[in-house]
């Protein structure tokens, strides 16, 4: 500790250069490439290849990708498993649906009701005036604010209450699941105020703009894709920062973080709130693209499906989360159409396979090292056939290729080593 101050900075700079390994730089570059590829796939390939019907379906899948993205930060990085992300998805979806429903329920088009001007399901339930909590949703500005704020505040209250009391791990997961269950029961039970089990349906226009037309669907898909890319970019900036490494530290040894002087509860609350807001953006975009909202997107089952999507993609991979959501939800559509009774078995099997064989999900599949192994084996067989010692040069050398990172897609904290 006797280094003179003047040489301090240069010594630090030298160490920093030493630390900025090729692998770290490579991970960063690969993330940038992955981001570019994702942008092209979402904004160019999908809109060009698919018709409006398919594109709209993909748009729906991508709303779940917001949830999965939040889960990657919260669970994959921070180690906080929430089994209640459907709550945040649903709450904001309902906020958006309430606004659209009020717009669709103008007195002219509801003139046959006994109370014109209120949503149809209220009329069916003998409600004669708009409930007070519906009134603010006549304002589009209020709705836009409520979409992230309502779920965000709920997550903040839940997170603060539990993390301050050191509720974590399985107990936290169970409580979030209970909240999901409570909310869906509440929505179903209060049919007159919420539309009950059918949800809020027959949504037509957003500020007079018909959201059911092909053009509107294309535009909404693009808005959704751009928002998703924004969320990915924001998440990347977190993952690459000290905050990202702090989340990994929390996952590894929470108590050590606490006894290093960090207010662990506030950091955990932050990432939980962020995940909730991501889910909320997804929920609002879901309502706009699909045209309705119902309790079946709020409860335990959808919440767990979202966790499985994140796990399949790779729970610590931001890009994996998006491809995982696409894959799992495409599978859901496909199997539900063709073999409806098989879907639950398929998703269960998918989860088991991921847990046993692919703990890092699809993102953990190291295709290049797999290919190398195959080539090596093939060569080994040929060598034996040739019955003579032969130098295995090609594929073996590629193992030491500096471009190859030591393990899988850069899913962990080592990405941060280049953050200077």
């Amino acid at each position, binding site marked *: *500790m006797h*280094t003179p101050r003047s040489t*301090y*900075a*240069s*010594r*630090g*700079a030298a*160490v*920093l250069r*030493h*630390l900025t*390994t090729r692998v770290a730089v490579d991970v960063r570059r690969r993330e940038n490439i992955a981001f570019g590829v994702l942008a092209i796939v979402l904004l160019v390939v999908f809109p060009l290849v698919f018709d409006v019907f398919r594109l709209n379906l993909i748009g729906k899948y991508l709303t779940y990708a917001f949830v999965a993205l939040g889960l990657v930060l919260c669970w994959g990085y921070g180690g906080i498993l929430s089994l209640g992300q459907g709550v945040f998805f649903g709450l904001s979806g309902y906020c958006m649906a309430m606004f659209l429903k009020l717009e669709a329920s103008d007195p002219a088009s509801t003139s046959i009701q006994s109370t014109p001007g209120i949503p149809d399901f209220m009329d069916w339930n003998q409600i004669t005036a708009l409930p007070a909590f519906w009134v603010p949703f006549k304002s589009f500005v209020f709705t836009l604010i409520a979409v992230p704020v309502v779920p965000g505040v709920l997550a903040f209250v839940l997170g603060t209450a539990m993390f301050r009391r050191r509720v974590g791990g399985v107990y936290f997961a169970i409580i979030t699941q209970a909240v999901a269950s409570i909310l869906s029961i509440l929505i179903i039970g209060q049919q007159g105020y919420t539309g009950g089990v059918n949800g809020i349906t027959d949504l037509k226009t957003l500020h007079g703009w018909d959201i059911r037309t092909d053009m509107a669907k294309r535009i909404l898909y693009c808005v959704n894709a751009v928002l998703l890319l924004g969320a990915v970019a924001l998440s990347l*900036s*977190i993952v690459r*920062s*000290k*905050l990202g*490494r*702090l989340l*990994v*530290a929390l*996952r*590894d*040894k929470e*108590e*050590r*973080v*606490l*006894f*290093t*002087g*960090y*207010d*662990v509860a*506030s*950091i955990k609350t*932050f*990432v939980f709130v962020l995940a909730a807001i991501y889910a909320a953006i997804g929920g609002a975009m879901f309502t706009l693209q699909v045209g309705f909202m119902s309790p079946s997107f709020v409860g335990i089952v959808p919440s767990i499906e979202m966790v499985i999507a994140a796990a399949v993609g790779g729970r610590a991979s931001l890009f994996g989360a998006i491809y995982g959501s696409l894959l799992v939800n495409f599978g859901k559509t496909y199997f539900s159409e063709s073999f409806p009774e098989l879907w639950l078995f398929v998703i269960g099997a998918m989860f088991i396979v991921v847990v046993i064989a692919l703990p890092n999900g699809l993102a953990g599949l190291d295709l290049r090292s797999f290919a190398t192994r195959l080539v090596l084996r093939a060569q080994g067989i040929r060598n034996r056939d040739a019955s003579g010692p032969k130098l295995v040069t090609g594929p073996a050398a590629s193992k030491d290729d500096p471009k190859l990172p030591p393990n899988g897609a850069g899913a*962990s*904290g*080592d990405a*941060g*080593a280049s*953050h*200077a």
Partner: protein
Amino acid sequence: MSAHLLEIDALSVSFDGFKAVDELSVNVDVGEIRAIIGPNGAGKTSLLDLISGRTTPTSGHVRFKDVELTELREYEIVRAGVGRKFQTPSVYESLTVFENLEMAYPDSRSWWSAWRFHRSPKVVALIDEIAEVVYLKDRLRDRAETLGHGEKQWLEIGALLIQRPELLLLDEPVAGMSVVDREKTAQLLVALSKGRAMVVVEHDMEFVKKIAHRVTVLHQGRVLVEGQMEDIQKDPRVVEVYLGH
């Protein structure tokens, strides 16, 4: 201003009626390495838990530089200048040695400032220096999971040093270490005790003899004897608790 850096005064904690620490009073001064020894269940780790805020005392006081620690949260106690090392090495396995040390630097501790955090060459140089002190200079780029047991213990000590604590609480710092590593750790702790106080819980008497200025023997949550190691080893009461009947 009180005379001692750390004053523990009539501290008690009971778990379901069992008194793990019972009316305990100990003072520790700057520059001192205090060893806490005693048979299993004597309350050694409980005492560290009480100082660092991991458990709340039933009664009594812990004063550190005239700050009452029993009223603070864990992270506030750390920020007041008390560092704590756990019995099992606790490092962040998925992060590199450098990142482990950087995480301990007492700066940008809120989520927002951690997000905005930028590495400054000064901090990097400090980390490099500390890594040298704890024998890990060549391992900065390696993930902590690749370290050996002893190296993990040193990494944790290094992380504590970066916090610049005035009081270091070490729970069995040489448990599971080889003889050579124990020797190196002893040298390390002696070098580090300058300008700060250390409380070390340890079973290895040879190690205690090497480092401790004073030794406190606990038995059933109370102070049995306090003094120099040579005197303590001869004390018939200590011999009795250790060897039993």
